[in-house]
């Protein structure tokens, strides 16, 4: 499979995905659970890949993702609420002090930059810590950020503990796919570049990496800032999906979910994070829903099945994966068209041989 053919096939595959999505949108009712899974799955896939960049590829165990998503979500919302809606949204703060709006794509990039800026500041003291301490420090910072954004004194900007709403949102499923897709593509380019290799070297052995000329502080900061940028963009997308933004929703539980997605997909595999993100959302929001409703067979009521059982089953499944399949679905492998074709070639060759032998 030559490089040129691979690229052509990849482009064709991407186009096919979009065609399928557009068709689905025409055919299925917009309230279908499939769209919930696709939209939320795409957004979580982006955040999961950004976390994987940090944890799986650079070896920095950070638990601050929810904080950066929060910053991104707020930045996006604050700068896109239309002027005439501001009075209603910021009702306790006199319409708020921000008096302009920016176009949606600009706001999304601002969301990323704001998150990256915070990451830069936080990273300065925190990145030299050992892995367990780094996890707790980033977790702590995420909680501090959450408290700050709920602080009423900052109300004119953040609306304090009230939620932000009425900002532009998306309706079609192609928007989050495009946005997330572009971002993930950039991250993949980074990972396959010289800097990506440097990150992996730091993960494998940071003392050896330093001895080979890789400046640890600079590269760790780079990974942290870039990962946070994309977490911020993911936050903006999440804001658009949820149509409201409230600091209280960005608890550390959100970071844990992303972490579990990354682990299930395989730390060090971008494809794994994407696949497991869709699976995770599908399971938690859709497929296991039946476990939450009381079901009867004839007149016999099935035990256990009531509200909340879904999450219990889900948690058990996650524990099983963590304990027995801790390399995740993909381990550190990635999807490639060449590999898939190879797989099929081998199977046809084997079945031909079996035919001839018979």
């Amino acid at each position, binding site marked *: 499979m030559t490089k040129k053919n691979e690229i052509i096939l990849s482009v064709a595959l991407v186009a096919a995905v979009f065609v399928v999505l557009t068709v689905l949108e025409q055919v299925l009712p917009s309230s279908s659970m499939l769209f919930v899974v696709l939209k939320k799955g795409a957004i979580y896939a982006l955040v999961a890949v950004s976390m994987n960049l940090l944890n799986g590829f650079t070896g920095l165990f950070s638990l601050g993702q929810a904080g950066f998503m929060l910053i991104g979500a707020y930045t996006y919302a604050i700068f896109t609420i239309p002027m005439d809606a501001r009075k209603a949204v910021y009702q306790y703060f006199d319409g708020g002090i921000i008096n302009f709006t920016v176009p949606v794509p600009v706001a999304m990039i601002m969301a990323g930059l704001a998150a990256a800026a915070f990451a830069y500041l936080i990273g300065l003291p925190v990145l030299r810590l050992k*892995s367990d*301490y780094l*996890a*707790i420090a980033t977790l*702590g910072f995420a909680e501090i950020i959450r408290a700050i954004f709920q602080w009423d004194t900052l109300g004119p900007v953040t609306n304090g503990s009230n939620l932000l709403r009425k900002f532009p949102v998306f309706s079609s499923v192609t928007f989050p796919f495009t946005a997330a897709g572009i971002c993930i593509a950039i991250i993949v380019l980074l990972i396959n570049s010289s800097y990506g290799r440097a990150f992996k070297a730091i993960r494998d052995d940071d003392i050896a990496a330093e001895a080979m000329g890789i400046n640890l502080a600079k590269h760790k900061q780079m990974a942290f800032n870039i990962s946070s940028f994309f977490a911020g963009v993911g936050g903006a997308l999440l804001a658009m999906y949820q149509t409201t933004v409230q600091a209280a929703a960005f608890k550390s539980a959100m970071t844990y979910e992303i972490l579990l997605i990354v682990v299930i997909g395989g730390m060090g595999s971008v494809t794994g994070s994407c696949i497991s993100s869709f699976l995770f959302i599908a399971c938690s929001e859709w497929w296991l829903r039946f476990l939450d409703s009381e079901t009867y067979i004839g007149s016999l009521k099935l035990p256990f099945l009531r509200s909340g059982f879904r*999450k219990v089953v889900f*948690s058990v499944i996650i524990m099983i994966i963590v304990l027995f399949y801790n390399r995740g679905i993909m381990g550190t492998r990635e999807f490639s068209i060449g590999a898939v074709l190879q797989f099929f070639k081998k199977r046809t060759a084997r079945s031909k041989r079996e035919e001839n032998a018979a």
Partner: protein
Amino acid sequence: MEFLNANLSYILAGISVGGQYALISIGYTMVYGILRLINFAHGDIFMVAGFMMVYLSAVLPLYQSIPLVIALTVLLGFVIERVAYKPLRSAPRMSIMISAIGVSYLLQNCAWYITGGLAKQYPTIPWISNSITIGTATTTIVTVITPFITIILVAALVMLIKHTKIGMAMRAVSRDFETSQLMGIKINSVIGMTFVIGSLLAAVGSFLYFSNYTSVTPLSGSIPGLKAFVAAVFGGIGSIPGAVVGAFIIGICENLIKGLGWTTFSDAFTFALLITILVAKPTGLFGEKSTEKV
């Protein structure tokens, strides 16, 4: 003195909750000292103990339900270690931390499922919930006796560690895991004992804590748990006296901040403290620095 009078109720509350955090934080610091694991599920064990008391005291008299809760909590901690942490002892450090997060997630979801998501009212344990007036402050007896119970239990624990064989084994294992195994120390017993002690203290902590803050929800364990962990890090992770000191400091400061009117920030204060100590002296107040051999 003025300050003391005006804020006496806050200071008392602070000492009380500090003692409760201390009992939880010992569990964190001991487990980290031996396994280098941040047991994210520890706070949730504390929460489960609270719920167990709610359900058991509805069917059993107090003198039976209290020991039963302690026994069940200890069993829970032990089982979690065997099922979720032991298999991953040789896996990379991140895996076992992720397992702890998974256990925490599971415990919270189970609690939500069983209780239906509504907060449950903690039963009143007679006598300790009675009011008492000290100086200008009115508070409950729980608030007053908590620091004493904490100090007694901690003293007992420190004596156990210093003067018994199992205590020496624990100290050895936290110094050097591999060599201790080679020297014939039964690692599983030591680790099991560590979780037993931690869970026992968490159960006692839950009696005291929920007698004060009587509403128990599935999330009741996460913030106290996190604060107890910060206390352990602040005091020097692996050091029991350090964890206790850290917990009291956090408890008192947190309540003083509430007293000053900055309630939104009382939680954030804990984290700010954490970050300060991690940046200034990562090994904590009583911790020791160790250099890595290249």
